């Protein structure tokens, strides 16, 4: 047997399922002409853009606004939530960590309040989203939303709507606008019109101006990248728990905005 030079020579040609392999007869110049014509017609207002354009762009902008607002209006005291979360991370890793008895004691001392912890989840989700880690952000928002945090649920709603995942968007929308049991006396429950697709139109009415006010995320993003796991398995590229250093950077960041 003659050894082959390249792995490529050994591999059989992909057998794509019927109907999913683009034919070679695809006419590129004609397609470009059509795109050019569509662009011109949409610019002249002679053709409506497809439905997903406005919906998804608006949802993304809204999410950016919510996230930016969440981070820039965060009282510095709440940054401590993230530090508390870092303590929690210590606790989770505790079986593996040496000398963790002290850490556990410190943890007990810091996280007194479950609501503070939930805010920490939400806040960390927002930091991750802003730093370009939407998959990891989703994870923390889900924990927050699971603990009935409405802003986390609202973030998830906008996140999924922006990705065209209508089913998930509906689910989180309903979670976000659900009448909370904790309403103060005299506060009306949020009113949602009884229309089948109402949940998809909400971002169109939202104010997205705050998005422009966010400070540049460069340093913060680098700090988050430091936490990205390089495990070589399916968690590769995900961001693990926050640590104290990130909490410090976030404090600086909140001071900038």
């Amino acid at each position: 047997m003659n050894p082959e030079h390249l792995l490529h020579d050994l591999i059989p040609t992909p057998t794509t399922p019927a109907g999913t392999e683009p034919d070679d007869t695809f006419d590129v110049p004609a397609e470009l002409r059509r795109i050019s014509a569509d662009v011109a017609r949409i610019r002249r207002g002679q053709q409506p853009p497809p439905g997903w354009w406005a919906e998804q762009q608006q949802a993304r902008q809204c999410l950016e606004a919510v996230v930016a607002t969440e981070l820039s209006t965060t009282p510095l005291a709440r940054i401590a939530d993230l530090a508390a979360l870092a303590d929690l991370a210590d606790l989770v890793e505790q079986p593996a960590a040496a000398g963790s008895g002290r850490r556990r004691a410190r943890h007990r001392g810091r996280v007194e309040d479950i609501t503070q912890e939930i805010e920490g989840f939400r806040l960390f989700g927002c930091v991750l989203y802003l730093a370009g880690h939407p998959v990891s952000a989703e994870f923390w928002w889900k924990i927050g939303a699971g603990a009935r945090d409405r802003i986390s649920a609202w973030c998830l709603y906008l996140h999924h709507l922006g990705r065209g995942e209508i089913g998930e968007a509906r689910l989180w929308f309903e979670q976000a606008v659900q009448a909370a049991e904790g309403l103060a006396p005299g506060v009306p429950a949020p009113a949602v019109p009884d229309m089948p697709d109402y949940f998809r139109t909400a971002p169109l009415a939202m104010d997205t101006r705050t998005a422009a006010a966010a400070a540049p995320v460069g340093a913060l993003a680098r700090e988050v990248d430091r936490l990205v796991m390089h495990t070589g398995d399916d968690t590769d590229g995900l961001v693990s728990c926050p640590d104290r250093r990130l909490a410090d950077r976030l404090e600086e960041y909140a001071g900038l905005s």
Partner: protein
Amino acid sequence: MNDDTFTGNGIGPAVHEPVDLPLDFEAYFLVKNKGFRRYAAEMLGDQAVGDEVVREVFTHLALNWDQVLAGPDFESHTWDVLTGAVMYRVHRLRREHELAARLRQTRRKLDQMHQALARVEGGAGLYAALADLPARQCDTFILRTTMGYTAEYTAQILGIHPRTVDYHHRRALTGLERLLTDRHVLRRTAAVPGPRREGADR
């Protein structure tokens, strides 16, 4: 350039209008249209509808080209736009269940292939080497290389991130190369660039 054609507000047949698109957009289209169309067809189960969605996406990108170029992460943004548009269409055509069924079917097929590979004993061929790879690397190799799916559709099947798929796939290729070189199926040359473990060649 296009003004004279468009005077009189007449809508002629699309093909007679001259192409008036940014040059770098056209280049991007040339590079990406095949992958985009493949992914859309995989998700929608239909090349014609997929092509329609991809045209919408490229039209959208062309209309907002300057903005798209100025964005922080160009490549991931264009993919976000594509996957968003595709999912929107999946929902509009009520094909969510169909898509889920197709994903399940592919996962089953993958399981069967794993079982078949586990039965391969000894030998120095590609399939014997494939059976020796870690499961995830084997998965991505089968889906990407043997079945020819896009990284993004592979990610849907496996329920992981497309970048993770790329990572596993790269590792699978280098792993296979090393295994096959050690077994003298491949010649010991450094013909394929890329990360190689020290001592694997020469």
